[in-house]
């Protein structure tokens, strides 16, 4: 009853699905066609102690990353972000990772283990993600020196790391002010 024909077809179907590839946009949104990052003046408490708003970082290239302790890909992204922050600090990159855990203790436990080499803010009441348009965890936004969102990455995929980094270097290369 299960002829080889139907079997082959099924296999072919799954294989074609399996090997279709999906790429993530590496290009920056041109500055003529951008949207300003919302809530730039909202002050959030940081892991490091002080209150920080996005506005207070103006003039820097910001990588704003929304994450939570229970999210696997977020965990994977921490070493990478630490690394990138160290690498491009002098060129004006500032990574701000905004934690969205509803239970802050879990975030604190996580941070103890994954020691971030970048700024971490707590947004326990989720004031920011809705207007940023976060649709997955993590979602990161690359914000230029004028406070405009120039690139968005949903998730954290090892195979796209080169693209993430090239978006950052492209933006760093743009002339400031």
């Amino acid at each position, binding site marked *: 009853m299960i002829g080889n024909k139907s079997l082959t077809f099924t296999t072919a179907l799954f294989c074609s*699905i399996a090997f*279709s590839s999906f790429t993530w946009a590496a290009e920056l949104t041109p500055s003529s066609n951008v949207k300003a990052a919302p809530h730039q003046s909202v002050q959030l408490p940081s892991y490091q102690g002080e209150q920080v708003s996005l506005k207070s970082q103006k003039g820097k290239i910001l990588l704003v990353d929304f994450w939570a302790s229970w999210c696997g890909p977020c965990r994977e992204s921490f070493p990478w972000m630490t690394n990138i922050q160290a690498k491009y600090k002098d060129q004006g990159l500032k990574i701000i990772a905004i934690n969205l855990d509803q239970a802050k203790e879990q975030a604190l436990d996580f941070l103890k283990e994954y020691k971030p080499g970048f700024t971490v803010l707590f947004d326990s009441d989720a004031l920011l993600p809705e207007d940023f348009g976060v649709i997955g965890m993590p979602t990161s936004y690359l914000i230029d020196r004028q406070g405009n969102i120039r690139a968005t990455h949903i*998730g954290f995929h090892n195979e796209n790391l080169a693209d993430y980094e090239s978006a950052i270097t492209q933006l760093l290369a743009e002339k400031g002010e």
Partner: protein
Amino acid sequence: MADKVSEVVAVAVTKTMKKNKDLARLLTAASCALVSGLSTTTHADDSWDVDSAFLLYSESDSRVSAVEPVVSATKNYDEETKLNFKIVADTLTGASPNGATPSDQVQTFTSPSGKSSYNATAGEQPLDDTFKDTRIALSSNWSAPINRDWAYGVGGYLSAEHDYRSLGVNGNLSRYLNQKNTTLTLGLNLSNDAVTPEGGVPTGLHQIPLDRSDSEFTQRSDSENKNLVDAVFGVTQVINSKTIMQFNYALSTSSGYLTDPYKMLSVIDDTAGSNFGGNFQSGGNNVYLYEKRPDSRLKQSIYWQTKHQFDNSDVLDVSYRFMFDDWGVNSHTIDAKYRFRFDNQYLEPQLRWYTQSKADFYNRYLTSSDYTNTSLASADYRLGDLDTYTIGLRYGYEFADNTEFYTRFSLYHQESSGEKGIGKLASQELYPGLDSMMLIMGYKF
């Protein structure tokens, strides 16, 4: 516990051999393709998760007992990309009801191979104790996302015991909607099973010969086949931050040899007189017939499951399944579990209730006046009116290194019911219950 051939299917062995070779080749090619695809996307924190467990199963009255070790290893390429291998072995020994009715006389039955015979004393449930089997099952599954909106999985399995072999492939495709709050899944499973009963494939509803010198034995074929196609369509919905629900519709068709070659029916004398309700005899021997089931079956089921976490972190898991098929079986299953969670331990009481109505061709016995006009019949209690109950308790302990030890003990009770029986048969226990216990011990690392 695969009751030897409890649910069988397939195509003559010679015919299948070639097909199986092709299938094996196809599976190999597919897995090679997968593995080569994988090697390019491996990551630093690849890890294996292993779940290994051991099941002890034992029925009361020295019926079937089984031991079943399982090892399942999952390689996590990332959050959603996984490769799983599973190996299961089981060994069962003991006796299983052969379908004949108990009697006020000693009964003698021909063993399935026709090489020997066994007895049931007066009033004793006729059990076939030539029952011993070892099964090995291997399966593998691969699941991965396609993009943000789609995911898929593919798998294959092989299961073999001395008189049964099953080979299958499966695949599923999921579509996420509504910010991943809704998931639609379509799953498909194809399998081909071959049964090679001891003594060959008996002729359905033929009188069971006294030994293998009979022509019924000499004309038997060695093997039969069955094919299965299962499709499941499911909707998984996140209700709120603590509740998730699934609703499935499943369609399952089987065709081919669905009969249990080791089961029989008694023919009971229904002519008025001293033997009314006793075993019908022919040539001085009791008449028993091999059972015969239809050569196709279409099952449909709907399934609903909900999981909810309470504010104290305890988790309630409730499910309900309604199944019906074209054999006339309807069944309802309710399963509930409640996990009390403590710091690094949990305790989970479980309850399950199952009820089924009998198949149209189920007969506890046939009568001397109608057995020659019967086209389908089985006295397998598993196709009769049946209620079953499971009560269980699971305990788990998580160590500091995230490994977990767990154990589960459960009791299973079956109650069969049906028509009382005529004449002196009415004083026999036609619908004995069954009690069994199950113990699982496992370790996840």
